[in-house]
């Protein structure tokens, strides 16, 4: 069925169709529609899920940890300050290997207060042991939320689904949906877990571990994250077979013969494709790639996508303080010998429009090494 819905509504619908048992969440713009919609489903009896109203995001994630440890399929959503308040518990969730799925609607962090798209929030928690999958539009937010449950439950790692505030969360578009049956056949009716709290079979979760074992426990988590890449790829492939909508770890557009490539994340990819078409019509060999699988970082795939370009502009939607921004640093570490330039655009919802993208390509062509795009003097 095709529905005209926003990115937030698409995520809420996907979570409901995935038969989640528990949602514990606190509303925050621009994520609010997700939890509003989900609480509506609960109130209307459209889902059997338990909706836990909590007093903060710290409590939201704590309640998710408890529910997931008991074996519940667990979902939450947040943005910006909310994610910041959860920070401590994000590590608890990943350290306890709990397959929680969370949508983070990317928004700038205060101060100054700003409600619009910016990747500073999810980037600030990129090393918290969560898988991070970035989306381009509402369709992909719907699809990725479904795939996230399968990935989380197979890897025993929590998964964050990233969608740009307003640009995706509040944009109404046609979203092709699946039936509940198709989805549950794909991800499994219920969470299959052996690793749960069960009075019949007592276990300890998140116990004190001293220097004699902490490194080994962390190594297991690091290996699980590295190995999750295969699970993510397989899940993307199976989903593609089911729906025809294929998501690679790194998606590229007209990069094969491109002299200059823009590497980005999130909603900017769509606009960049239009600019690539416009510039190619003028005879300029440009292309664009975007990282869908940011954690684990799809470094090999990034290198493969951009290796033949004369220069590559890596565009971050994050203000860097005293160093380079995160997508650039990750790319730099994976792409030895490739000519990379760091760009920053779209802070606090500053529109990433065709001119912004053109400016990046112009600077790449002219070899201008200037990081900030679209900022007034």
């Amino acid at each position, binding site marked *: 069925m*095709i529905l*005209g819905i926003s990115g937030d509504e698409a995520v809420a619908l996907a979570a409901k169709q995935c038969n989640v048992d528990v949602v514990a969440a606190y509303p925050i713009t621009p994520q609010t529609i997700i939890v509003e919609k989900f609480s509506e489903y609960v109130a209307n009896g459209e889902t059997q899920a338990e909706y836990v109203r909590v007093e903060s995001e710290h409590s939201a994630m704590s309640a998710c940890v408890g529910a997931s440890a008991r074996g519940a399929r667990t979902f939450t959503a947040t943005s910006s300050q909310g994610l910041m308040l959860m920070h401590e518990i994000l590590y608890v969730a990943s350290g306890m290997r709990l397959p929680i799925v969370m949508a983070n609607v990317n928004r700038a962090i205060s101060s100054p207060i700003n*409600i619009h798209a910016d990747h500073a929030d999810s980037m600030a928690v990129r090393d918290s042991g969560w898988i991070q999958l970035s989306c*381009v*539009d509402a369709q992909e937010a719907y699809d990725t939320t479904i795939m996230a449950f399968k990935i989380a439950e197979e890897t025993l790692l929590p998964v964050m689904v990233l969608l740009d505030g*307003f*640009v*995706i969360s*509040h*944009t*109404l*578009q*046609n979203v092709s949906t699946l039936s509940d049956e198709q989805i549950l056949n794909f991800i499994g009716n219920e969470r299959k877990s052996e690793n749960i709290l069960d009075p019949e079979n007592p276990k300890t979760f998140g116990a004190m571990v001293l220097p004699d074992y902490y490194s080994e426990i962390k190594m297991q988590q690091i290996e699980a994250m590295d190995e999750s890449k295969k699970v993510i790829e397989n899940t993307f492939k199976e989903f593609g077979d089911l729906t025809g909508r294929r998501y690679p770890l790194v998606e590229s557009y007209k990069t094969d013969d491109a002299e200059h490539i823009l590497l980005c994340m999130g*909603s*900017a990819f*769509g*606009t960049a*494709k*239009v600019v690539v078409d416009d510039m190619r019509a003028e005879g300029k060999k440009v292309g664009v790639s975007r990282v869908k699988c940011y954690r684990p970082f799809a470094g090999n795939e990034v290198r493969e996508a951009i290796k033949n370009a004369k220069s590559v502009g890596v565009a971050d939607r994050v203000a860097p303080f005293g160093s380079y921004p995160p997508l650039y640093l990750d790319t730099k570490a994976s792409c030895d010998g490739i000519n990379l330039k760091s760009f920053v655009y779209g802070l606090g919802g500053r*529109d*990433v*429009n*065709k001119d912004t993208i053109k400016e990046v390509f112009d600077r790449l062509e002219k070899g201008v090494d200037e990081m900030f795009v679209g900022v007034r003097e």
Partner: protein
Amino acid sequence: MMYEIRFHGRGGQGAVTAAALLCRAGFLAGKKGVQAFPLFGAERRGAPVKAFARIDDEEIVLASQIYEPDYVFVFEEWLIEYAIEGLKKDGWMIINTKKKPEDFDLDCKIATTDATGIALSNNLKVAGFPVINSSILGAFPKVCEEIKLEHITQAIKNYWPGDIGKNNAHACEQAFNATEVKE
């Protein structure tokens, strides 16, 4: 072909919902690509609000705001100076006003309809203020062949089931009939 539409209103008048309804009407008209999104500042009643819609036969990948619209909707006359910015040379401005298109000296095509009067006569009010989104949309099929009146009224009835939808659809039809145009 892609049509880009921009709405200029004030918080509470229904500009954001108008963009969403037009996008739903586009879908009912068989368009593959539809997109509608608001530009929020501080969310408060009375503050200037912009909303955007794109309608295309193909899927839409563009994710930026709209700078050179084909159509602009103006919910109050004083917003004309903002609405005209970037409007294409052969673009249409749809104005909520009691005046006629001839009363305006603007470098664009003009359609007028008294959406406020029609909304009030149908008692379409929220918190005492007229909500004119369903009415003003009635002018659109007069200036864009791609979307028919029935697509818009159907989108309205789908969005607000029951009597509310019927009232709004009725206001939309009245505004359609009352629309005057000047090319």
